[in-house]
C-alpha cells in the first residue's frame, strides 16, 4: 500500500486543523502515514498554547488524536525547533526529534509527500 508523508510547514490555525483531518482519514484507510514537522510547522508542537483565547480550535489537541487512528509516527526537525527556541522537552505533542539526515531519509521513504 502506498505510504504517505505529511510534511507540515505552516503554523497552527484553521488550515492546520484541516490538514490533521486528512491525516486522520489516512489512518481510517489504514494507509501507512507519517507526519514530519519542519520550519514553521514545529510551531504546532509548542507547549503552552491556549487556542481558546483567540476562538480557535486547538491544533495540538487535534494532533494528539492521531495515534488513536494509527498515525503514530510523528517527527519534529531539531533545527527548526532550535531556531524558534521551542523546548523539545516541553512540547504539546509527542514527536521524535530528527536531525537533517533523517529528514532527508523520511522524505525519500514515502511514496507520496503531501504538504500543507
Amino acid at each position, binding site marked *: 500500500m502506498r505510504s504517505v508523508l505529511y510534511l507540515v510547514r505552516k503554523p497552527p490555525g484553521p*488550515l492546520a486543523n*484541516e490538514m490533521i483531518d*486528512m491525516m486522520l*482519514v489516512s489512518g*481510517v*484507510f489504514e494507509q501507512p502515514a507519517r507526519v514530519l514537522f519542519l520550519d514553521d510547522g514545529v510551531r504546532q508542537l509548542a507547549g503552552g498554547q491556549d487556542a481558546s483565547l483567540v476562538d480557535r480550535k486547538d491544533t495540538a489537541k487535534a494532533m494528539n488524536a492521531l495515534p488513536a487512528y494509527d498515525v503514530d509516527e510523528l517527527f519534529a526537525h531539531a533545527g527548526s525547533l532550535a531556531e524558534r527556541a521551542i523546548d523539545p522537552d516541553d512540547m504539546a505533542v509527542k514527536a521524535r526529534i530528527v536531525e537533517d539526515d533523517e529528514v532527508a531519509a523520511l522524505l525519500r521513504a514515502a511514496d*507520496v509527500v*503531501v*504538504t500543507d
Partner: protein
Amino acid sequence: MRITLLIQGAPYASDAPRSALRFARAAVRSGHRIHRAFFYNDGVYIANAFATPPRDETDVAAQWVDFARSHDVDLTVCVAASLRRGIVDDGEAEQYELGGANLRDGFEIVGLGQMVEGMLEGDRTVTFGA
C-alpha cells in the same frame, strides 16, 4: 501514469488552480491521465457557481470544468472544507435550510476518503499549495 492532484489555494489569492491546470493539460498531452483533482482548504472556493469574473479576466473554474469534461477527470471538492466556506449542493442546501445551492456544474462534493483513495490509486500525487 495516473496522476492525482491536490490543490489548496484560492482562485485569486493563489496561483495554485492555474498552475495545476497547466500541469494537467501538459500531463494529458504527454499521454498521462489525471485521475482526480481534489480541491481542499481555500482551494474549494473555485467550485462556487455564482462566481462571475469580468469578461476581460480568464475564468479558471470554467477552464477546469472544460478540461475535466474533455479528459474524464474527477473534479472533487472536500465536503467539510466546502460546507464551512459556503459551497453547497442541493442536498446540503435542504439539510441546512440554506435557501439555495451554489456548487458549480462539473464539480462533485466528496469526503476526504476520496483524496486518500486518490493517493492510493494514483502513480503520482502532486500538491499545489496556497
